[in-house]
């Protein structure tokens, strides 16, 4: 199908972007790999698309004291290939190849994925597992929101009117593991796991099991795999989808937990 009619403006600066997104019916266009399909399927009907892809300041990947800061406009392909991401936030480098296909990864962005908050998306769960901070830019400065408070409901985030996702900061961790079950490579996840571990313990988040990424608090704290498997049902109550019952999804989540456990545990 074809997209409905809308106006288009390409922001030349962040200041101009703030002004444009305040117009009635405005929506931000970044990589467009989720927004344009939803336009083509007429699931969205914005009056104005504000293209922010020209804002080069939002594209950089830099090491900061708090961790690796990745600009909102960094593409999945850039994250997949970045040496700094591989070194300081390897979880994201492990996750990126699972996102759709190469041609889509060349345009889709980190900020777009976080802002859309698709419950089956990879980066939101990584952000939760890594205790990332989402950086939101607005006219008067920046607001920083921990990932645990950013994803509020199905496709709903803490982004307020007038704010643009500028990027996210990912603290360095010692170990990470990313696992995803799909029917075919690049499909939406049936169940996925993003897990990290360091001296402070494990942090395991799941995606594709609820309206938002789910932090598996009990399983993360468990002292052994057996206990973790027992308590995972308290962390996750996955809704059934067209092909998988809730029980199947919980079973698959346990399978992923078993596969991830050794990597997330201290060497003997």
């Amino acid at each position, binding site marked *: 199908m074809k997209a409905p009619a809308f106006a*288009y403006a390409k922001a030349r600066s962040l200041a101009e972007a703030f002004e444009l997104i305040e117009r009635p019916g405005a929506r931000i266009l970044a990589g*467009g790999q989720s927004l344009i399909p939803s336009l083509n399927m007429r699931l969205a009907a914005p*009056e104005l698309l504000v293209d922010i892809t020209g804002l080069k300041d939002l594209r950089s990947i830099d090491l900061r004291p708090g961790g690796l800061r990745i600009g909102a406009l960094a593409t999945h392909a850039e994250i997949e290939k970045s040496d700094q991401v591989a070194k300081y936030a390897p979880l994201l480098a492990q996750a990126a*190849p699972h996102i759709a296909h*190469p041609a889509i990864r060349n345009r889709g962005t980190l900020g777009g994925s976080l802002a859309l908050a698709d419950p089956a998306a990879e980066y939101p769960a990584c952000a939760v597992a890594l205790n990332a901070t989402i950086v939101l830019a607005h006219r008067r400065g920046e607001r920083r929101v921990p990932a645990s408070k950013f994803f509020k409901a199905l496709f709903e985030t803490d982004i307020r009117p007038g704010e643009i996702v500028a990027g996210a900061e990912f603290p360095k961790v010692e170990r990470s593991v990313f696992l995803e079950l799909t029917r075919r490579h690049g499909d939406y996840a049936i169940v996925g796991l993003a897990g990290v571990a360091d001296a402070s313990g494990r942090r395991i988040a799941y995606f594709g099991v609820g309206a938002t990424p789910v932090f598996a608090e009990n399983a993360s704290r468990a002292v052994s795999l057996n206990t973790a498997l027992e308590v995972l049902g308290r962390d996750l109550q996955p809704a059934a989808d067209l092909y998988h019952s809730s029980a199947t999804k919980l079973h698959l989540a346990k399978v992923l937990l078993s596969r991830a456990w050794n990597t997330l545990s201290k060497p003997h």
Partner: protein
Amino acid sequence: MEHAVETTLTVNGVQVTRRIAPRVHLVDFLRDELGLTGSHIGCEHGVCGACTVRVNGEIVRGCLMLAVQADGCKVETIEGLSDSKELERLQRAFHEHNALQCGFCTPGMLLAAQDLVRSGAKPTRDEIRAHISGNYCRCTGYQAIVDAIEETINGKG
């Protein structure tokens, strides 16, 4: 509400300037406005890969990019890459391996495959399959396509 936006882009080495309605995606523009009908439209929501074109050297879904977003970009399509002979070896291998039947997916498949060929990688068959996983072929069963790409890269079929 909708105002056409003056857009200048280079398509297969030729600079074109048009006023384009924002809702028009890149492949509709290439096909309807420029008559370059080699890039196909399948699903129009990013699943099938038939619309794969190259923008600034990287393959993209032509249906998931607005034509106005291509302002200032260098766009290459199956027509340009065939004429320049860049795809010659892949095209010959596809022919010899019978890696197409109806041919609908072939332009997009060749662009995705060429992306791998020119990366300089030495992929395994599994890696070749992963790279073309976003390009659907409903005729061949993919075996012959993987054979053709493997032969082009590794010199064996």
